[in-house]
């Protein structure tokens, strides 16, 4: 079966923005495809959501399951892979995926969201999944009975500490700044726990081990002294970065790597829209991302229907 590789619209990402765009595209009967690495994006890891209209309380995974169910009703084709490059060689966009495929589209919506920020220290990549993890909710229970380190003194870092201090003999919390930035109630819980040691003004400098992690070296940023902590788990909770690397050649990003958009989700390149947390929209919320996804899809629709008929695009599917 030869796979269709060119579409009027390709939506990149399947979080709230991408999935909403898919529903709007389907209802406008746009010839659309969704390419995504996973489904739900950050919503998948959200514990309890209490500010999405229509749901007094819903968990992230439950909301994502509802999104999936809704989108599946429209039979929008889906491809599961990571996008590695977006270019516009001629009149159409070209999209390359990690699994080696190339797709072409007349319009594109970038809704790829954000991913966990890496520490960028020696040993981190080597030990990913071998003691280094970015999802305390997923992998926390696997470290029961082991000493662990949490990097990041914000709310997600403290969430991890409070979860781990119940099952681990020792939990180190490492924060670069002088103060923790989490909610006071969480900080107090961590401070009161006898097995939690909080190291502020401290940076992780190296992750070491054999087959799995067995130690982390940290450095005090004020005094400069180094310390080797014997831990088998490293939980990295230092924020998020936009998944925008693949558009760098086409668009000027803001200083934190987000895609600047106007009030109609346009990027400045005709036919290229962006929505959700990958953009510079000031507030990152599920319902805002969904709304932006709708705006982007409606914008893409208006763009596509106004394109001159009879262009040669069907003959050049990248």
């Amino acid at each position, binding site marked *: 079966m030869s796979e269709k590789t060119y579409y009027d619209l390709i939506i990149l990402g399947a979080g709230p923005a991408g999935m909403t765009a898919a529903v709007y595209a389907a209802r406008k009967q746009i010839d659309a495809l969704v390419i995504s690495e996973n489904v739900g994006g950050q919503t*998948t890891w959200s514990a309890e959501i209490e500010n999405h209209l229509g749901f007094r309380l819903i968990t992230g995974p439950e909301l994502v*399951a509802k999104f999936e169910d809704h989108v599946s009703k429209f039979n929008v084709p889906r491809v599961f892979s990571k996008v590695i490059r977006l270019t516009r060689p001629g009149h159409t966009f070209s999209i390359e995926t990690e699994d080696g495929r190339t797709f072409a589209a007349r319009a594109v919506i970038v809704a790829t969201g954000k991913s966990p920020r890496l520490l960028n220290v020696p040993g981190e990549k080597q030990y990913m999944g071998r003691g280094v993890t970015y999802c305390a909710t997923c992998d926390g229970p696997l470290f029961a009975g082991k000493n662990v380190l949490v990097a990041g003194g914000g709310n997600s870092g403290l969430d991890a500490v409070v979860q781990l201090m119940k099952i681990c003999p020792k939990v180190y919390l490492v924060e670069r700044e002088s103060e923790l930035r989490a909610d006071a109630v969480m900080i107090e819980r961590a401070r009161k726990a006898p097995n939690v040691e909080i190291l502020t003004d401290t940076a992780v400098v190296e992750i070491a081990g054999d*087959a*799995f992690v067995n130690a982390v070296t940290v450095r005090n940023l004020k005094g400069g002294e180094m310390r080797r902590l014997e831990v088998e788990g490293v939980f990295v909770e230092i924020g998020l970065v936009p998944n925008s690397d693949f558009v760098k050649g086409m668009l000027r990003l803001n200083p934190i790597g987000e895609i600047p958009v106007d009030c109609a989700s346009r990027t400045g390149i005709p036919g290229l829209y962006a929505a959700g947390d990958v953009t510079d929209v000031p507030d990152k919320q599920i319902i805002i991302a969904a709304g932006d996804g709708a705006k982007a899809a409606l914008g893409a629709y208006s763009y596509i229907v106004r394109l001159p008929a009879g262009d040669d695009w069907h003959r050049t599917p990248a």
Partner: protein
Amino acid sequence: MMAETSTKRVTIYSTPTCPYCRQAKDYLTQKGISFTELNVAADMEARNAMVQKSGQLGVPVIEIDGQVVVGFNRGKLDELLK
């Protein structure tokens, strides 16, 4: 097609709190594929087996007829379930 896929032996190593494990299980269920679930948070033997098979300590790990997929990777799952 369903009948063919149901002959594969599928095991999922998961923790009760992991959202991707849940998505993976929902996905398999939707496709009509039966699977064995092992809770590696509680079952040490299963955890050791998972580490030995996947060379890593992260969930979910899905084993399809002896082939191991780390994480909920639909592309790979679809390929192995063909």
